[in-house]
């Protein structure tokens, strides 16, 4: 793997995934769509960490440990975020991110 595919190729794929996720998080009107974009961005970060581990420090385990902690935090974020989406839907009858603006000055 390390001989056949250069590190740059993996990093470019991860960068593309991150930018697509950023676009989704910023342009979706649906709150669930925004969360999907955030999940894509977290996945891109994980690909980066695993690629750096595999190419640069294959004999230490730190890169994979980081990736597992990020997966853990992403799971917590998804659970709390989706619970908030459901709570917002219950009170406002909408999941449009533009319509929920009670805190807007």
């Amino acid at each position: 793997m390390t001989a056949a595919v250069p590190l740059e190729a993996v990093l470019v794929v991860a960068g593309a995934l991150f930018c697509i996720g950023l676009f989704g998080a910023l342009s979706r009107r649906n709150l669930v769509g925004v969360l999907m974009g955030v999940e894509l961005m977290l996945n891109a970060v994980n690909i980066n960490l695993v690629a750096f581990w595999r190419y640069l420090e294959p004999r230490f385990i730190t890169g994979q440990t980081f990736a597992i902690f990020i997966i853990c935090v992403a799971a917590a974020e998804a659970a709390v975020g989706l619970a908030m989406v459901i709570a917002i839907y219950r009170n406002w009858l909408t999941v449009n991110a533009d319509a929920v603006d009670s805190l807007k000055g």
Partner: protein
Amino acid sequence: MATVIQIIFGLIAALVVGAAVMVVTVRNVIHAALWLIACFFGVGALYLLLEAEFLAVVQVLVYVGAISILILFAIMLTRQVTGEGVRQLVGGWRLWLTAAISALLFAVAIVPTVISHSWNLPAPPGPPGTPEPLAGVAELGRAFVYEFLLQFQVAGVLLTVALIGAIVIAFEERARRRRVLTLAEEHELRKRLAQPPPVEAPVGEPAPAPRATPISEGEVQQ
């Protein structure tokens, strides 16, 4: 061998990027969630190709098995406003600004940096053919109970707090639970909401847009 790996990597990269593009552009949110599952599978396959087997299994278990199902449930619980005909992306200049920011970040910042930076790749060990020293699942488990013990415990506490928080946020008391209205009640409610212009809504008109104000408790309940 190298060509096979390159072809596999190209297919996986195409799957990941293509599925991600579908996630952010497709109109139906359910379809977006299904494309998200495909994208997670692609990322898991990429981990497998990078020889991180445990992470690939964790990716399939956590992302494909748990987070996707959570997202699908959230979509179905908010079904009335996530249907087919609803506009899903922001409109006009905001869409173009967002697309420009993402494309410029990729083309101007990420790719030139990645290409031009000289990575400090370690030298291949010995003559060609010798296996590379590679940390596996055993080292991972040992790292979790020795080096990263504190972080491991903190992650456990974080997951517990997130679990409790999600339940507290999404919990609905029985007394406040909004029951499904009958047709007559809904008609009555609509008439009351459309009071300021006293004109009766025509029959074929779609339901009024949801109001962006909290619904008080006594309004809907009988």
